[in-house]
């Protein structure tokens, strides 16, 4: 069987996979990182978004072997080692940006990439457009948008330190 080597949240793993094994299957089933969710499995909902080499990607629409050698960040790797929440997670809590929480890991991963790739600022319209690939069946998006807007200055302040 082919083997794939991935660095996930800073830790290197080598696992056996099939050609057809999806990245999300390796994360959830081989590495027991079940924070990454599968909402649709048809590339629509964004619950499975992780970062591959810093860029948000739907891990249900990615073969594990395509990611060989890559650096993967999942929701489990977002908070600090001592448990301090990432500013994006903190703002999701502060602004009540989740209800059932199913979409939240994908939302947070998309949002972090969005904020990181727009250092100069993000308008509400840009945030809403940036979330087009992430579906939430509970919140109505309003508070998610607020949380991302609030996290922007915090993330860029931390980055500037």
């Amino acid at each position, binding site marked *: 069987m*082919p083997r794939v080597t991935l660095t996930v949240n800073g830790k290197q793993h080598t696992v056996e996979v*099939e*050609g*057809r094994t*999806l990245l999300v299957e390796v994360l959830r089933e081989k590495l027991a990182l079940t924070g990454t969710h599968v909402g649709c*499995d*048809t*590339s*629509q909902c*964004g619950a499975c*978004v992780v970062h591959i080499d810093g*860029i*948000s*990607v*739907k891990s249900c*629409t*990615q*073969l594990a*072997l*395509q990611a*060989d050698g890559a650096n993967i960040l999942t929701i489990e790797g977002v908070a600090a080692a001592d448990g301090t929440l990432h500013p994006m997670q903190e703002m999701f809590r502060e602004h009540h940006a989740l209800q059932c929480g199913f979409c939240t890991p994908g939302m947070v991963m*998309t949002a972090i*990439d*969005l904020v990181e790739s727009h250092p100069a600022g993000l308008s509400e319209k840009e945030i809403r457009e*940036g979330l*087009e*690939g*992430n579906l939430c069946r509970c919140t109505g998006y309003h508070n998610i948008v607020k949380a991302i807007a609030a996290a922007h200055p915090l993330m860029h302040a931390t980055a500037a330190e």
Partner: protein
Amino acid sequence: MYDFAYQKPGSLADAVKVLSGDPDAKALAGGQTFIPVLKQRLNKPSTVVDLSKLGLSGITVSGDKIVIGAMTRHAEIASNADIKAKIPGLAHQASLIGDEAVRHRGTMGGSLANNDPAACYPSALLALGGTVKTDRRTIAADDFFQGMFTTALEQGEIITSVELPVPQKSAYEKFRNPASRYAIVGVFVAKFASGVRLAITGAGQGGVFRHTAMEKALSANFSPDAIGGIVTSSDDLNSDIHASSEYRAHLIGVISKRAVAKAA
């Protein structure tokens, strides 16, 4: 998904060899169409050949043309300074494809090879009168698209890049399906010194097509008013749960005017 062997060759020659030697081997670019297709078991490849290590990515300006590598992602096309300055319609079009995560993976070559009747780029290639370069030849846009999900590509042939002439003006307008984000009607208009080309995606039963009546009117007078009176027949247009062929015919008029207003 059926299982398959996976290969990531390091040279174009190796990739062509695998794909040409086995009729059941298939190329994989961004996977944003192909992986969903595999999940539905609509395709059963023996080997999947990942094109990501062939050096087919990148955007270069060469004289009055822009050359885009087949593996260039939608997000790069949307944000590239040269494309924004020289073919703004294309940068805008790329920014409207799918969503952020899809644009991070999906590629120019994959979209053109797939030739989905609702895909965006076929309209840019056709309206700009571009050419498709493959491992073995050059194919003009007018010859490349051969009906829904059908192109001039031969078994195992790999798109390496596309070459797009820089127009004086360009714009893309899209009436999109709010759920899938694909085009119900998309219009790309390009104005050159030699005349205007206008291509419609999303609507035609045979996939992307040029609207010659509009091209003629716009070549004489590049303004939305010039095409205000042109009626598009619904005969060869798609009808589905999203829009009837009559509605699509109507949208072609409305969206074309918007595209011209934007470009003018």
